[in-house]
């Protein structure tokens, strides 16, 4: 059975073709790992094979993967995971007592005391309880019910599940979901897959990507002509934009959601990544409850968190949760059924999440090191955010909003008309054309703004601020150099 034989048979004879497969699948795109990344991987292969290029490595600043860029894991977290994995190590006195206690507690809650057993599909109960306690502490005592907590394989899993639960209806009654532009393309991909209607609301670039309720209103009103708007998605802190919403803004959004009878989805995975002076993370739940029972007992909401970002950066462990508020009990029953189809979230991710919501306390042996490591990571990110904004704003043709939070910069790039035309000839979005050239000439992999959505006629790219400071500096200089060259070449 040759490979050609396997995959080279004429399409006509196939049972499964692009014409008869689920048509929604064709519309799914995910730029963060899209064609530009595939090309980057190819180039890496070529470099390995000894092909000569103007650079010796590809800097992958396309994906929010901190460890891939050299960020070190937090010692305490990894110690507990090792203990959970191989409990014989509980006899090893090189591990601190608090790590051992956490591990023992987690193992007690696992089937057969093993992280290799399936857990309940909603997640291990004592971990859900710990998550509730964490939320209560974070939100100044506002109660959280463990039954409303669903552990998930990263936040993406929970977000997709909630969208799946809500997309229904036919024709003009088809569910519409409001998403920010620019957005993290998981949302557009999920909606394409589900056949949900994407309703774009534009963040205001001139006001540091602020969310404006008048824009929300414009979007939902227009959408009512052709679909049934039911969900409003907010990403705070924003991805790719990094803006941190003010408390006032969050209140306005909640009020709007209540008026328009919308289900709120608050993606808060970057809640610890807040850098700018005067910016503070306010959880949607906290604000909702502080607005009083008129809102807190009626507005339906899900908020999402993850172990992939913040100071942990443990993307590979797929830990996360969502908290659902005011969900109709019948819907909740269906949600419970829905999550059981994927069996259970990875248990190592659940264990990791437990440590994130239940970190070393001041009276515990690991506390000092833990705080030191956490502070160092967040401080480095804050510094890199500042540096990035500074350098980019020295480049004519690049305009960069302050990176208030998250891990990305999304600068606006001015492209010469000639470049735009040439891109169109090649059938590429202009910023994709730009980014591809940057990749080929400088070995830097970014994601074009077209992958996230942007106002017509504007162009952007998303770059992570994750590479180590020295490498980041080099990368910023190279982009500056490239931009100037590019502008000249196409003038």
């Amino acid at each position, binding site marked *: 059975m040759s490979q050609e034989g396997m995959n080279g048979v004429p*399409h006509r004879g196939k049972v499964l073709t692009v014409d008869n497969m689920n048509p929604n699948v064709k519309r799914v795109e995910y730029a963060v790992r899209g064609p530009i990344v595939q090309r980057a991987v190819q180039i890496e292969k070529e470099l390995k094979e000894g092909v000569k290029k103007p650079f010796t490595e590809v800097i992958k600043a396309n994906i929010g993967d901190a460890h891939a860029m050299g960020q070190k894991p937090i010692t305490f977290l*990894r110690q507990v995971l090792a203990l959970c994995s191989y409990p014989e190590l509980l006899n090893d006195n090189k591990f601190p007592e608090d790590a051992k206690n956490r591990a023992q507690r987690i193992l007690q809650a*696992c089937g057969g005391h093993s992280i290799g057993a399936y857990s309940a599909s909603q997640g291990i109960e004592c971990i859900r309880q710990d998550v509730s306690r964490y939320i209560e502490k974070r939100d100044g005592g506002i109660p959280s019910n463990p039954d409303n907590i669903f552990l998930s*394989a990263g936040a993406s899993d929970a977000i997709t599940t909630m969208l799946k*639960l809500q997309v229904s209806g036919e024709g003009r009654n088809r569910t519409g979901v409001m998403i920010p532009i620019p957005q993290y393309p998981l949302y557009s991909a999920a909606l394409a897959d589900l056949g949900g209607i994407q309703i774009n609301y534009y963040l205001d670039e001139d006001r540091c990507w602020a969310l404006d309720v008048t824009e929300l209103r414009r979007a939902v009103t227009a959408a009512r002509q052709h679909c049934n708007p039911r969900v409003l998605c907010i990403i705070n802190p924003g991805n790719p934009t990094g803006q941190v919403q003010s408390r006032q803004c969050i209140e306005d959004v909640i009020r709007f959601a209540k008026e328009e009878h919308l289900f709120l989805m608050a993606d808060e995975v970057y809640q610890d990544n807040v850098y700018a002076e005067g910016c503070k993370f306010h959880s949607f739940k906290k604000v909702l409850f502080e607005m009083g029972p008129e809102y807190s007992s009626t507005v339906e909401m899900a908020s999402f968190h993850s172990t992939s970002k913040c100071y942990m950066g443990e993307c*590979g462990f797929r830990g996360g949760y969502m908290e659902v508020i005011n969900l109709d009990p019948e819907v909740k029953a*269906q949600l419970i*059924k829905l999550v059981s189809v*994927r069996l259970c979230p990875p248990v190592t991710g659940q264990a990791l999440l437990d440590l994130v919501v239940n970190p070393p306390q001041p009276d515990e042996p690991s506390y000092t090191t833990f705080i030191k490591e956490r502070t160092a990571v967040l401080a480095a990110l804050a510094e890199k955010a500042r540096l990035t904004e500074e350098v980019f704003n020295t480049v004519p043709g690049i305009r960069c909003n302050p990176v208030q939070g998250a891990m990305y910069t999304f600068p606006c790039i001015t492209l010469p008309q000639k470049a735009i035309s040439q891109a169109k000839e090649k059938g590429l979005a202009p910023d994709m054309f730009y980014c591809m050239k940057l990749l080929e000439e400088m070995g830097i992999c970014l994601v074009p703004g077209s992958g996230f959505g942007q106002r017509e006629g504007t162009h952007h790219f998303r770059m992570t601020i994750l590479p180590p400071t020295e490498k980041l500096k080099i990368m910023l200089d190279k982009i500056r150099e490239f931009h100037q060259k590019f502008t000249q070449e196409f003038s």
Partner: protein
Amino acid sequence: DRHGAAAGLTQGWHLSHTTRQNIRNSELAPLGMRAWQIKDELRQGARKPYKELIDVSSADPHRAGVKPLSFVRQVLAVCYYPQLAKSDKLPADVRQRAQRLLGTCAGGSAGSYCPAGGIPEIIDIVCEFISRRDDGVPSYPENIFITSGAQRAFVEILNILVNTLRSPITGVLTPCPSYPPGNMAVVMLGGAVVPYYLDEEQGWELKIDELHRALESAKGVCDPTVLYVINPGNPTGHVQSRKSIEEVIRFASEKRLFLMVDEVYQDSVFEQESRFVSYKKVLAEMGPPLSHTVEMASFHSVSKGFIGECGLRGGYVELVNVDPSVMRNLYTLMSRDASTTTGQLALDLMINPPQPGDPSYPLTAITLHISDLRVLEVLNSLPGISCQPVKGGGYALPRLHLPPGAIQKAKEVGMLPDYFYCSRLLEETELCVGAGSENGQRESTYHIRYRQSSDEVLRRLTSFHIQFMKDFS
């Protein structure tokens, strides 16, 4: 109806389930929930006939008390906390393997994202494993996706196959009894489950006549496009012969069906005569045109077999003869959500265990199999219970021949008869087994399902059963 998938799930679940009438809303795992409760009660000192709860309702070996393999857990521990490699308390092959695996992770960390589709070095090892298993039939990296458990890949591929915009809706031929999450996935995606009944009297054999009948039954109801097969059978324990596999492949080709083959129990085959042979190997050996045309997806996982690491979520799918444009779309679908690194590492450890000469060889054997002939003898000697030979898989699926009195009593308390039996068993002996209704069964037949692990299980079951039959005769 307000809620899309939720509505589909309720409706479809009831439509496809052979016992739709009496299932209460919470019935997906009531025994499991009650078992946890009893465990808590025992922990708090409640007085019960037995001091320990035994839960063998799931094929999850660790939950049933089987210990994980040291090698696997040692390597994972070092991958999570590489400091451990510095001490020589752990065997050299553990440290070397961890080093090699961390080398395949971006930034040398188990916490970074896996590349879309899987870590390339591990995909290569999967290819080698498949080829070795199949006596040299080649396997290609671009046809392999590593995912967080085989279930994730299964759902994603069904997602491509089930076209809800067509009328009639896509039908999936599924075995009965079956693996419930498989059926649930079909329903969740808006497809129709078309059951084909396995032949209990013949050891749960898959009969082609029955496939024909099932296909006929779908006329006018749905458009069958997929044939879902589980080999070794779950929960039946049947292992298909090569001849049977060839017949199924021919049927799939004739009727233009996409084959989805769940082979997660391929390492769990107990009898000499019942050697596992993969669908891929058989297909290749059938030669052209079938070998070049039959479209297929086969699944494997770290959840079962000899490592039994369900909670780590590692698995893969291999696609055969799938249209390249479809493959490109599948790649995009798979790239949206990274799979867990732990699962990928565990997969490497499962398919590439220590070899003779390595310090950790041989791996401490886990007795996952339930091939205890004595059990079958005992059960088959009791009135009211019989069991087909178990050739492989994770369970035994004995049939209950319930007296009318028991069936009546079950109706009175609003439970399905096999649930009623299992519920009594749980309360009276703290032994939790699964009810056959969950997996599907022919109308008016009743089964229990359990993962046998000890004499204690047999003891409790036997003493309960004898009493139960007495009480209701």
